[in-house]
């Protein structure tokens, strides 16, 4: 145990704490998601809960909120022990939670969604007015009759927050709230949170955005692999020291080559437009982009602005009518399907590894066949699959990308997120593609795997390939990209060199502020 935790556990029913979760243990099968974790929080305090993916943060807050029951341990509320049997009990105590994945119903209105989150005895009469009032008061305006399906991600989060606020919580738990917000929306959220804290409400804030946590939070509890490793004041720490506490070791810094001159354009999008026939989808409009050999271009954007649609248009899962809209190595191929594009030495990694990038209940060697069947050497001969050859490729990927698994050829779903992602990315890189398009490369992946994947992308670019990265993680983008473009509502901004575009500017572009002026002015525009 770390010396930072020496002062925990010395309060027997102390009134000064609003919430205490003591010695919480939660076991799932063989996994100890929480291993003797203690967390305490005072009224009016903004308390950060830090840790990487899989550290046990979500499990702990679900226990506090009553969605899960601890295997052992006790939760104290305002000094008294409580049994939070389910979320209704938590809400009655005054605990509200805004999940990372929203509990919303697309086909219902804002008011109906909020009504479902409130208990039955709170009448629906006048709810619409209350929603309008409270949301405006706290700077998060909402239209009560809007259909959730029509709202942006940021607006949907407001519904989640407002529904908590309507119940006048004493503790508000927020799980990765800024993952889906533009920088400006995040600033607005901080104002709201600071106001709540000023009113005496406690805030438990889960995030892996260390700069944010240092700016906003008074106290922090750090988890690693289910155990409590530190309790610190983030304002006294640096982002690097917090990261080390989270990971437990020095994470290899990613070495990016930023100064290399790019070669010929290998991926070109020209006036790419793709209307969507999905009532909940996003149409792509007049997208222009070039990715040259040796460079990494990133497309930044908040979720739901057309990233999947863009990926599908480039990969060929959704071909376009205009064959010149997409060019690979100079050849028009807008109408070609994904197999034809793979034959042009392009490779693709989609956002969802389970169900899209890999078949969860198939073995890894079979998942190799998924993308290697038409371009991999010797995988398919005369219509028959060579299982041994596929397994060889599987072993090769495992060795090169450090894929950790229980048996040599397990089902894909038995791998952890990070290991499966390493496999999926490795599977494409072993094809030695000239062009790689990857959507959310390190989403839900532990720091070690993320670093390995990002380094692999950089190495691939250094070898002369053109790489397009679509990501919601701005830290990642700044780390690896040579040029950055922003996608908003299906439209793509020009791609600016990474050194020249500020975070604020990206935020504005995400919100849809597109410039009409001459591109040469953009490069020199002030940050």
């Amino acid at each position, binding site marked *: 145990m770390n010396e930072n935790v020496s002062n925990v556990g010395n309060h027997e029913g102390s009134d000064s704490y609003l919430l205490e979760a003591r010695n919480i243990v939660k076991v*799932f099968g063989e996994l100890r998601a929480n291993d003797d974790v203690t967390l305490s929080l005072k009224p009016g305090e903004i308390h950060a809960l830090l840790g990487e993916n899989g550290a046990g943060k979500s499990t702990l807050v679900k226990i506090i909120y*009553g*969605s*899960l029951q601890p295997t052992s341990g006790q939760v104290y509320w305002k000094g008294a022990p409580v049994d939070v049997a*389910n*979320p*209704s009990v938590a809400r009655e105590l005054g605990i509200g939670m805004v*999940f990372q*994945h*929203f*509990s*919303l*119903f*697309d*086909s*219902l209105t804002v008011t*109906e969604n909020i*009504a*479902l*989150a409130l208990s*039955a005895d709170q009448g*629906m009469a006048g709810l619409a007015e209350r929603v309008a009032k409270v949301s405006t008061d706290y700077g998060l305006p909402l239209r009560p009759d809007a259909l959730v399906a029509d709202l942006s991600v940021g607006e949907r989060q407001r519904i989640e927050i407002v529904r908590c606020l309507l119940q006048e919580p004493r503790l508000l738990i927020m799980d990765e709230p800024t993952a889906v917000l533009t920088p400006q929306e995040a600033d607005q959220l901080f104002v709201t949170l600071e106001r709540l804290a000023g009113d005496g409400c406690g805030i438990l804030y889960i995030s892996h955005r260390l700069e944010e946590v240092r700016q906003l939070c008074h106290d922090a509890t750090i988890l690693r692999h289910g155990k409590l490793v530190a309790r610190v004041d983030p304002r006294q720490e640096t982002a690097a020291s917090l990261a080390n506490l989270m990971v437990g070791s020095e994470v290899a810094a990613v070495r990016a080559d930023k100064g290399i001159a790019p070669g010929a354009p290998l991926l070109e999008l020209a006036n790419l437009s793709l209307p969507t*026939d*999905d*009532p*909940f989808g996003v149409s792509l409009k007049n997208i222009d982009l070039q990715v040259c050999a040796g460079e990494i271009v990133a497309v930044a954007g908040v979720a739901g602005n057309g990233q999947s649609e863009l990926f599908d248009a480039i990969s060929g899962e959704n071909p376009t009518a205009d064959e010149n809209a997409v060019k690979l190595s100079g050849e028009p191929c807008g109408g070609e399907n994904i197999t034809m594009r793979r034959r042009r030495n392009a490779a693709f990694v989609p956002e969802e590894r389970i169900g899209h990038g890999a078949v969860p209940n198939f073995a890894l060697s079979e998942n190799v066949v998924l993308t290697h069947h038409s371009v991999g050497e010797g995988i398919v001969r005369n219509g028959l699959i060579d299982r041994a050859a596929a397994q060889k490729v599987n072993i090769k990927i495992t060795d090169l990308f450090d894929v950790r698994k229980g048996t040599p050829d397990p089902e894909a779903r038995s791998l952890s997120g990070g290991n499966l992602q390493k496999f999926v990315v490795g599977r494409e890189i072993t094809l030695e593609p000239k062009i790689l398009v990857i959507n959310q490369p390190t989403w839900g992946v532990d720091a070690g795997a993320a670093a390995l994947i990002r380094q692999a992308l950089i190495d691939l670019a250094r070898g002369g390939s053109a790489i397009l990265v679509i990501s919601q993680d701005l830290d990642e983008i700044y780390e690896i990209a040579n040029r950055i473009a922003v996608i908003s509502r299906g439209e793509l901004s020009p791609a600016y060199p990474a050194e020249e575009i500020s975070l604020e500017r990206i935020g504005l572009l995400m919100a849809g502020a597109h410039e009409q002026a001459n591109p040469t002015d953009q490069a020199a525009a002030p940050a």
Partner: protein
Amino acid sequence: MGALEAVILTIITASTPLLLAAMGELVTERSGVLNLGVEGMMIMGAVCGFAAAYTTGSALLGIGAGLAGGVFMSLLFAFLTQTLMTSQVATGLSLTLLGLGLSGLIGEGFTGLPGVKLSAIDIPVLTDLPFVGPILFGQDILVYFSLVLVAAVGYVLFRTRTGLIISAVGGNHHSAHALGYNVIKVRYACIAFGGACSGLAGAYLSLAYTPQWIENMSSGRGWIALALVVFSTWLPKRVLIGAYLFGTVWIMGLYVQALGVPIPAQLLSSLPYLVTIVALIVISGNKTLTKVNTPACIGQPFAPER
């Protein structure tokens, strides 16, 4: 009784079982569950209804038995799909096969025996009115019940909290669970409701439509009811219109034959099935209507984290 009056009366009796079964399945599907066993539940309702009515002499007891038969079958389905998390499609099919087999076995002793007919109501003066009388005031109680059912289901689904919860569970069961709603319990209830309605529809067949027991007498009506729910985009009022449309097609064959038109009887008998296919084509081809109204979770099993 005039020809038009007779036609309308037979349309009502032909449409009622479709309406009852479809309303039940609508509620089930709204909660996110696809129960393909409607045909099996219906035929069990028919045999149980007939058996009870014959043994006791009371059509009302027969209706109760039919309802119970449907509920029993539906609970088997619910146990398998909700508690054991089996595939809803395969389990629904198995329910139909089981229902057809079981009803054949139970009903063997009752084939050819005279039925107990569910009597029509008789209100003095009103029922005797020419034309309007028998049509509006001379039906049996299940017909009136079916219409009340449409109104009641519509009201509950769209104007009450219970209905909101059902739509939530069917729209996004993970969110509903996260909010603290017992998804499995809600689905059990909706499945049982669907079973009750299908059972009633079956009882109607053997007690009112043809007061007799004939093996496989449901003749695919359960499947048509399923198509009806899709066709009506999960809206009760549309189910009413659809049921009467299909009911009309169903008995059309009889009337065309009676008119002596030289079309083979089998072709006329195949009309309901062909029309069902056409209806499915029409509605499924309209992506906007289907995608927006389909309960998003339909057919997906729900397994909460522990």
